[in-house]
């Protein structure tokens, strides 16, 4: 099936539907995933098609229903746990970090862990501090987990299906503002490896490494930079554990300049890992110190202006890119 304007949530929905149909061991569970159809419509229609045992509405018990997914995965089910938002995943971190990531290891390699934990995160629209964050930096530091961060409907379709089919525990980090974004979806197209980064715009002067919703902003910034005579290459990492260093290094060998764009706060964030590893591996390739454009060191304020000022924007990416390329920041447009 080809669709030129598929919504991100529809791609996820199609992926779940395809896997539920293909394998009786796949189950979906979480708060309001069944009768209600999912807070972001991702599980719409699945309850009617597969019944309550395969698409299970759970009580508000993140710790235990995520742990339920762990137990079910131990005996060969392929649970897809939806945590309504990443903010509630703090209550489920024991199941994700201490159990899912460690049981295969602690058992000496005896048990499969075909668990997928899906959750939307990021800064949306005035949801205030408790509902406006990402936790990738916490999960990235856990050996045994894999983390997919699809930014397009096509990647959502590919990566969720790959995650369900994998025997390893995989966290799929979605973004609340991407659910109603549109893009092409070709269901028959062959998927790249789940962790492969994508060069989504080719360029010669600097490499912008980013992921999730910041892909869209970085591409917008790259288009503006092109108008100003700067050719930016944009890499969407697509996976935060592992990270496709080869694709990044190949780009740096061409551009010699690195800018990392991430939505979450800068200190000890995902960008710190990207910059540190690329500096270790490509220090002499770089013409300039690497830079990060990241969220402010603040919880996200409810106030809309403060919220917008707390995260990267296309102009802030453009300004940082111009600085790295030795040009003055452009004058602010009204």
């Amino acid at each position, binding site marked *: 099936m080809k669709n030129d304007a598929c919504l991100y949530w529809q791609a996820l929905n199609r992926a779940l539907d395809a896997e539920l149909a293909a394998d009786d061991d796949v189950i979906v569970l979480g708060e309001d995933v069944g009768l209600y159809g999912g807070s972001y419509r991702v599980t719409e229609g699945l309850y009617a098609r597969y019944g309550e045992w395969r698409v299970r509405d759970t009580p508000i018990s993140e710790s235990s229903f995520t742990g339920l997914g762990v*137990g079910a995965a131990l005996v060969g089910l392929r649970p897809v746990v939806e945590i309504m938002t990443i903010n509630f995943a703090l209550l489920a971190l024991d199941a994700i970090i201490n159990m899912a990531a460690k049981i295969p290891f602690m058992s000496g390699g005896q048990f499969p862990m075909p668990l997928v934990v899906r959750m939307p995160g990021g800064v949306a629209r005035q949801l205030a501090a408790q509902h406006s964050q990402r936790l990738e930096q916490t999960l990235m530091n856990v050996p045994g987990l894999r983390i997919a961060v699809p930014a397009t409907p096509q990647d959502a379709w590919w990566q969720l299906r790959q995650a369900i089919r994998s025997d390893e525990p995989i966290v799929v980090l979605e973004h609340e503002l991407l659910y109603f974004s549109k893009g092409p979806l070709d269901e028959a197209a062959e998927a790249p490896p789940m962790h492969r980064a994508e060069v989504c715009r080719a360029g010669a002067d600097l490499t912008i490494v980013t992921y999730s919703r910041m892909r869209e902003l970085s591409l917008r910034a790259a288009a503006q930079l092109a108008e100003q005579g700067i050719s930016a290459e944009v890499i969407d990492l697509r996976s935060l554990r592992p990270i496709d260093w080869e694709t990044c290094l190949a780009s740096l060998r061409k551009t010699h300049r690195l800018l990392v764009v991430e939505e979450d706060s800068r200190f000890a964030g995902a960008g710190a890992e990207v910059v540190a590893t690329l500096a270790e591996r490509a220090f002499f390739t770089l013409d300039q110190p690497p830079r990060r454009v990241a969220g402010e060191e603040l919880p996200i304020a409810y106030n809309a202006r403060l919220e917008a000022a707390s995260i990267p924007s296309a102009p802030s990416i453009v300004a940082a890119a111009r600085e790295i390329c030795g040009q003055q920041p452009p004058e602010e447009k009204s």
Partner: protein
Amino acid sequence: MTELLKKMLRDMLLARAFEERAAEEYAKGNIGGFLHLYPGEEAVGVGVLHAAEPADYVVSTYREHVHALARGLSPGAVMAELFGRKDGCSGGMGGSMHLFDRERRFMGGYAIVGETFPVAIGIAYAIALRELPEAVICFFGDGAVNQGTFHESLNMAALWRLPVLFVCENNHYQIGTEIHRHSAVPEVHKRACAYHVPARRVDGMDVLAVYHASGEALAQVRAGNGPQLLEFETYRFRGHSMADAGHYRPRAEVQAYERRGDPIDVAMAEAGMDEAAAARIPADHVGRLAAQLGRDGHLDEEAFESMKAAVAAEVEAAVAFAENSPEPAMEDARAALDCNRHGEVLL
């Protein structure tokens, strides 16, 4: 019944000897980390697991060596795991608190209090979805019932009628805090009624009582009648772990449990050992045995001694097996972590 009792008594003697030897090996430095021992609680693990079927699953805590042994893991594989060796049941990656055996459906020892509940309901969910006549045995201590996962998981187990037998080993202490100081409702079984889970309290020092109660509950669970909870009152004779001398327990309380009877003595009485024979048995396991005897001697002194000798030899062999097993290599650790990658090469 006599044969079963003899088997259970033998498992309890093995459990006691294994744990006492583990303490010695810990003192010698052959076992590291945290080591939580089971003496005093043998009747619970042995009684419950003799009532289990091979197709049932067991989810256990960090005080689980004896659960593993009673489930049929070899003492050598368990001791080698305590030694951190390659032939341990978890390849040396888990240690004392993380014993696993997929073949025997021993689904692990979990070291974070309260983790066994969600794991157990997850396995039970798979059983229910597949409509199999199997049960999950979920061990936990009295301290675990104040974790959120206890309430969350009992709720879901009851809501979806999941096949779980919740087994509380109530030894009255969460490390050093006595149950009246950690629980507003110290009768653990009473908490289950909040979720309409049938529950009762049973003497956990009496292996036969444990066995019968577990068998009845498991039959209900396997029949699809939803979860059940059993609270076994027991007592650990040692501290919480090797790092704990147990000074917080009043002497009078410890003595009261000693008077009440070592579970091994109770099992011996139930196995029909006569009073005179019991009186000749060395002091360590006698306790209040004599008063509980009086049946016709199914287990004579000679048989008991040979049972003890066999168990001692088994523990000796387990230690030798552990000592001779190689250390795992770094590649083994990486292979364990990547066991589900199936050769996929990541960048």
